[in-house]
């Protein structure tokens, strides 16, 4: 049962991470083209810096980024609780 809990938690966490990366990659390639795509792989978005830059540049708060981050944190909590007594 704990192993299923860990699987669920990590899938949520990794899935959320992938979606956040796609968001970051799309934004970078949109702003800087091919160079932005390469930079997206090299650089790290940072928890606060990228959303602030996105907010300033696009004029819209990146809600999607934080929604997915929230789901990822819930996944991490599930995985943490499932591996607590191992």
């Amino acid at each position, binding site marked *: *049962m704990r*192993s*299923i809990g860990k*699987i*669920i*938690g990590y*899938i*949520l966490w990794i*899935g*959320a991470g992938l979606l956040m990366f796609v*968001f970051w990659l*799309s*934004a970078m390639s*949109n702003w800087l083209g091919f160079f932005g795509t390469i930079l997206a792989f090299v650089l790290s978005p940072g928890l606060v810096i990228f959303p602030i830059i*996105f907010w300033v540049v*696009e004029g*819209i*708060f*990146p*809600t*999607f*980024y934080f*929604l*997915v981050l*929230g*789901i990822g944190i*819930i*996944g991490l909590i599930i995985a943490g609780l499932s591996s607590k007594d191992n």
Partner: protein
Amino acid sequence: MEQEIIQTEKVESKENFFLKRIQKYQVLTFTLSFLFLYRFIGTLVFYFAEKETFIENYGLSIGVFLIIIPVVYFLQWLIVIWVASKYTQESLKEKFYRHPIATIILFILYLTDLPYRLSGSDLGIGLFKMINAFEIIIYYASISFLWWMLICWISKKIWRKQKFEWPWYKKIVDKFFIFLPPIYKFILGLMVALLIFLLLFVLFVGVFHYSGNDIQKL
């Protein structure tokens, strides 16, 4: 004094009947709980959203549905737990070793018939299609397992001694017993995770009134 202790133990063992079974067969309980909640909540949501559900298809009222679905899933859980309690992993493996012909034939029948079962059902779309297909695969596998048990029992009555013994067959059975549990857990975990992801996303979208403007900018 002794009688009192025995009586208390009896009461405790009766009280803990369900708890013990749940703890012992966690994966089975989790599977059926997940399928029950998916079916129950899913149908309620569709019903109140005034979309077509199987309630209308079978001419049932919502009240009957509220009683029947939990009862049916509870009975299924009892049957599955009863069957599971008959075997340990080793005794089940021995049974597979002992009846290679029945196992191979029923496995081939299961694999060849499964696509027809799946194509004959309305599976829906996206994640729901995946979960509905998973449910059909699981139920059909359970029914096939019951048939296999019956055939093995009849075969044991007819042929007292084991007729065939193939090393390659034993190896395949061993591999199945090694790889199937983690694969099953991963598939089940993946579906539950995707459903949780979807539900949390819908919840957050509702709470924060998210309109998707930031995605449209990309």
